[in-house]
């Protein structure tokens, strides 16, 4: 999928990936890749500024943990405010997808 389209929805994608369980950045990327069936193959670095931005906005919270490897890692989880934001994103997305679907359905074909 086009990178620019993905970036426009990055916050929603990251929140959705974290909605199930807390995870570290690498885990979030793996979750996105796995749940999208490989369609969302983001430049991996872009996820970290998004996590930081969402945390600063109060949608995520984070804490340091020690991995099995002994390295320090930051584990993120969705806040209550974040869950509300995700529901709003989802409702907006469904409206948008529904409208686009109706548009394609009405024309019956995609112009060349």
């Amino acid at each position, binding site marked *: 999928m086009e990178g620019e389209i993905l970036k426009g929805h990055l916050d929603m994608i990251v929140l959705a990936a974290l909605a199930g369980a807390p995870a570290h*950045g*690498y885990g979030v990327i793996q979750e996105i890749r796995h749940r999208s069936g490989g369609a969302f193959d983001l430049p991996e670095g872009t996820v970290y500024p998004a996590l*930081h931005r969402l945390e*600063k*906005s109060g949608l995520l919270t984070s804490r340091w943990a020690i991995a099995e490897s002994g390295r320090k*890692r930051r584990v993120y989880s969705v806040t209550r405010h974040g869950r509300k934001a995700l529901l709003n994103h989802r409702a907006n997305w469904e409206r948008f997808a529904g409208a686009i679907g109706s548009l394609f359905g009405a024309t019956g074909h995609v112009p060349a």
Partner: protein
Amino acid sequence: MSQRSPIVEYADALTRELSFDVALSRRVRAEVEDHLWEAADNRPTGATPEAQRLVIASFGDPRELARQYVAAALLGQIRQVGAIVIFVLLGIFAAMKGRVAWYGLMQWQANRDWSTVSAIGLSIDRYAFMLAFCIALISCGYIATRRIPVRFDPGYSKELNRCVFLCAAAAGALLLVVVTETILTGIRLSAVQWDGNAAVPALSLATEIAGAWLLLRQIQTAVRRKAAAWLLFP
């Protein structure tokens, strides 16, 4: 001589790019290094130098990555300045009220030789504090309504400049309050005997001066960080 691994070199480069915010650069470095080592370890060959280079290639350019942190980092700093403006404002108010109560308790009279200066000083003090209070409220309202954009752009830069300007204006008015308070307290203490009781207003004044200094330092840090971050966008 031991050769540094590509991941460490990449982390060094990222730390340099994020040098506008040292705490952020440390945090991001730890996070990114953990990511890159895990990704390299998970490759079939293990974390060989070649595997590390491949992992780094899919991670992205360190400068581009650093740019994506700028908007949130600078707004975080500005929010901190806004909170300190309110904290210092409340601290100065408490110190002022505390000193007046102490003068009453000690039954210290105003120095009559300086009555005109004291009257003018009190007016300046009162209006400067009211001005600082109003500007601080506007600053906090403005800062609280800013949202972190995905990209740092000139429009957002202007918004941050407005935040800094408002905080600096509030700090300027508070500085005038502190200077006036210093003069008024000096006049008041010149008429009393210097003993332990005089240390109470002197200490409360020192607290005000420390608060004003802290605020000015925070504004200076915010301006420096913004200037340093701006260098990432040639």
